[in-house]
């Protein structure tokens, strides 16, 4: 468990570094390292499907999206003003206070096992998504439909300026 704990500590340090740099490009680089690290931690804990999905979605879609934003707006030449004004330091202080006063939840004894104990993680995921929480899956698809329809519905209002 020592190696997993070290990897989780690296996650924490990288996430602090994402907010505590001066250049937005380094922020993006740290966040890509964070995504890969989180996928690594999930793989070590035994959740292979989640690890691969994390890699695919976060690095493959979100990091590429942010990279395009930085590329098109030509951000590397600028500097994040929040760092030089001291707000980033205040954020790091919040992390330290969090560590001192234990505001985040602590890991307690885990006695309740949900799902099938002997099955693989993807079997458990399939049972949860399609058997136990199937109605929530349909409701979630409703939320995605709202997001999709909403993007289509709002777009003509802005361009024609009705």
């Amino acid at each position: 468990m020592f190696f997993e704990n070290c990897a989780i500590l690296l996650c924490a340090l990288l996430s602090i570094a994402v907010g505590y740099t001066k250049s937005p490009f380094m922020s993006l680089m740290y966040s890509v390292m964070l995504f890969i690290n989180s996928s690594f931690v999930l793989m070590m804990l035994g959740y292979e499907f989640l690890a691969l999905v994390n890699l695919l979605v976060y690095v493959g879609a979100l990091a590429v999206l942010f990279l395009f934003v930085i590329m098109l707006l030509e951000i590397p030449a600028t500097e994040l003003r929040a760092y030089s004004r001291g707000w980033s330091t205040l954020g790091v202080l919040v992390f330290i206070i969090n560590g001192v006063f234990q505001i985040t939840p602590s890991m307690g004894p885990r006695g309740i096992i949900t799902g099938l104990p002997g099955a693989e993680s993807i079997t458990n995921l399939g049972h949860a998504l399609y058997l136990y929480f199937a109605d929530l899956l349909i409701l979630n698809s409703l939320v995605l439909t709202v997001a999709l329809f909403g993007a289509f519905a709002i777009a003509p209002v802005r361009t024609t300026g009705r």
Partner: protein
Amino acid sequence: MFWNSIVELDLCLGLLLLILFGLLSLRNGHVSLSHIRFVCQCWLIMITPLEVQDYALCLLTVVLLQSFHSFEAMLFMLLAYIGQLFMLHSCNLVSFYVCLEAQTLCVVVLCGLLARGASTSFSVEAALKFLLLSAMVSGMALFWFSAMYQRTGSLDMVGQETFWILLVMLFKLGVAPMHMWSVDLYGSIPKSLLLYLSTAPKLSLFTFWASSWHHDFSVGVFILFSMLIGSIGAYGQPALRSLFAYSTINEIGLMLLAVETAGFHTLYQHLGIYIITQLLLWNLTDKRLFALCAVSLAGLPPFAGFFGKAWIFWHAMSVQAFSLLAAALFCTVLSLVYYLRVIRLFWTAPVHTAASFVGAPNQTTLTSACAVFLAFAPVMLVKPFVI
């Protein structure tokens, strides 16, 4: 859990057919928007009601659909209705989160959709503010859901993480330390959306709270904050909308008092009277009826608002929550003055109706029905105080 809710999920199939019907038949010259609106309202009535709140939500949405003038807006309203219907009966944290996201996202899309003419940038700004704040807050809620699941292995609601999840629920209601989004939003969205935003989400959230949400600490701090900010904050406001936004915060504080003293019957009663007052308030063509709304909201005796507040105070007294009761009475007196200002301004104003108000005949029926209810409902409500 799937087979328990298959009848309500059948509603979604009906919604699909409704979308197809609306999109294909609006091309025809003989089918007008009012026909589509009628079919939407018929679809709404095909629910399986288990409690009074189902009927109330259905009726409220049927009334609210009257004020929308485009098919896409009605569709988002119906999608939010499905989310709220499931939230009324949800007993699991994940379903609460999904339903909350469904209705919040529909409100955000409606904010952007109903922007027209000169107020486009205001509406878009309001939509962006609401989206960013509520997304951040929902993310926080999801973190504490997973913390609770990690600690106890179940998604039922016990434990110390309920405080943070309660903060999220209070944010969505517009309770006072987290109320700034509602004051900004009330000033910049069109009236039909304001009508929806101030009534339906509160109904579904309060019903979820009253039926399935358990926490073991008191919300007294939030009650005090809400009532103080709601009473005092309205004094500097030049616009009528933000004045009534602060009065809404005051009323939410009062409803939290009802929840705190576990008087859920008083909560629903006051919520019902409040919803009818809001329906009257944002649908007016005759300016003098603003005075009637202000009298009812202030809690002055012959109208129904007095009895909503009186039942809550009576229950608080019977549970012996005397300090909260004293604070609530003090803040009600403080808020009386700005209501009196509204009454003075609007009762003595010259009578003129807004000439360019679209859809006037339907709204006149609604506003007169609400005004009659506010004036004559006390006959039904006065019994415990007389005998």
